[in-house]
């Protein structure tokens, strides 16, 4: 089996328009969640989100690109540009033929759907722009990345709700580990902060009106975010031979299905994914120093996740750190695992653990060290990133310092 390392990372999200700004915000425990600035927000009962602010598409893309790129694709392209530039890779020859792009998203082009449903239903128009379909399709972002960077190998999009990015990165990892691809561009993107996107979530009554406070006893729900993060995963010898900067090694991945409930999480399903990732990486539980939690800030997720971690780690659960950065950037749904991987890489490279902000009251059902409110310096060698989706589909990645 090949070893898999990360040689590039890029992002745009509510905390920053690149990796440096994002990790600085995470170190400072800054909150990117605020008032939503979207059409018809007055008709929503949830009026907050982790929205990407100060962003103008025209600063980055020409007219023809904007006609084809939904907001989730735009975010993907910006994150991919940063990641691939950092990796220093140019995809040509055999590298181009074998390398591909696997991305996660849940809603795909939600803004495009929203705008065009308005146009035909609300405004009564009978004609839509010819690019509606290529703009809204879930694989649009992956396809545009493949075209921009000449990636001709295995490429597709994974949609497993809140676990989409972790499932996508897991696929990229396995493609390289098995020797099928020398490098993969991977991660995920989401842009659901439009009237229809937020209204749909309102219906489920799991959203907070004021803040995302994971693991805090007074937590009252999740807050949506938007944005993207993209990484370059590369076969270790390939990266070493060209003298690439290695950010971290991806050394384990596991998936599980709860086979139980369409919305309620399962302690056992989550625990099987976590222990599966450890087994896949050949790690013992006590080697793990930090877990980037799924930590949505809902009553159900956070207590179930803590119970699952306690099941897998036993006494070591009280020694490791676990934080939810969703408190800062919101829940990016299909893109969330990708943005959260930035916090994992920061922990390994910089020795800084991103905090769970908004933490106010201890919850007897969430007694782990959630790194409340302030980032912490710590020396960690191995980290995990959890993602547990609606529909009971779980995906956990293991990373280690190189």
């Amino acid at each position: 089996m090949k070893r898999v390392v990360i040689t590039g990372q890029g992002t745009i999200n509510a905390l920053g328009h690149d990796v440096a700004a994002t990790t600085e915000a995470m170190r400072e425990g800054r909150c990117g969640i605020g008032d939503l600035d979207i059409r018809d927000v007055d008709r929503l009962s949830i009026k907050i989100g982790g929205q990407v602010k100060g962003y103008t598409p025209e600063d980055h893309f020409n007219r023809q690109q904007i006609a084809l790129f939904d907001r989730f694709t735009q975010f993907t392209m910006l994150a991919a540009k940063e990641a691939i530039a950092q990796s220093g890779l140019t995809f040509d020859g055999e590298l181009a033929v074998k390398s591909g792009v696997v991305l996660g998203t849940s809603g795909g082009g939600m803004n495009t759907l929203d705008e065009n449903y308005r146009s035909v239903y609300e405004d009564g128009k009978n004609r839509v722009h010819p690019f509606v379909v290529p703009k809204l399709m879930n694989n649009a972002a992956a396809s545009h990345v493949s075209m921009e960077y000449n990636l001709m190998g295995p490429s597709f999009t994974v949609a497993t709700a809140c676990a989409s990015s972790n499932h996508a990165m897991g696929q990229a990892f396995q493609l390289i580990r098995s020797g099928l691809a020398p490098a993969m561009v991977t991660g995920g993107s989401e842009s659901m902060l439009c009237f229809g996107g937020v209204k749909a979530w309102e219906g489920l009554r799991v959203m907070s009106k004021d803040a995302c406070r994971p693991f805090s006893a007074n937590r009252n729900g999740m807050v949506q975010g938007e944005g993207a993060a993209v990484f370059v995963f590369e076969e270790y010898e390939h990266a070493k031979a060209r003298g690439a900067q290695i950010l971290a090694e991806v050394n384990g991945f596991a998936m599980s299905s709860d086979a139980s409930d369409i919305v309620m999480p399962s302690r056992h399903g989550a625990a099987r994914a976590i222990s599966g990732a450890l087994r896949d990486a050949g790690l013992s539980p006590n080697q793990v120093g930090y877990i980037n939690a799924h930590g949505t800030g809902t009553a159900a997720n956070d207590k179930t996740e803590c119970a699952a971690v306690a099941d897998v780690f036993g006494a070591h659960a009280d020694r490791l750190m676990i934080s939810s950065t969703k408190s800062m950037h919101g829940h990016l749904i299909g893109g969330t695992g990708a943005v959260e991987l930035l916090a994992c890489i920061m922990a390994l490279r910089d020795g800084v653990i991103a905090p769970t902000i908004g933490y106010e009251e201890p919850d007897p059902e969430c007694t782990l060290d959630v790194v409340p409110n302030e980032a912490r310096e710590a020396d960690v060698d191995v980290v995990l990133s959890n993602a547990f989706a609606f529909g009971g589909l779980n995906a956990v990645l293991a990373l280690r310092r190189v």
Partner: protein
Amino acid sequence: MSDSVKDKVIAIIAEQAVMDVSDVTPDSTLEDLGIDSLGLVESIFAIEEAFDIQVPFNANEPEQSDFDISSVASIIDAIEKLVAEKA
């Protein structure tokens, strides 16, 4: 008015529980009726649609909502208040 609110709410809860209206009594709890959290959220939606009201309910903190779901009677009381406030 009150009777019709009560009857309508019971009809909605009975439909959710897949039971006869006559089997849903005021002192039944949602647990008795086999209605889980998703079923509750669906019932609240149906109630909001039926009476054109907004029910203040967050599934993350049911005990802190102004909407008491401890029994069918408490739900009916709460809905009656909301309907009266709207009128």
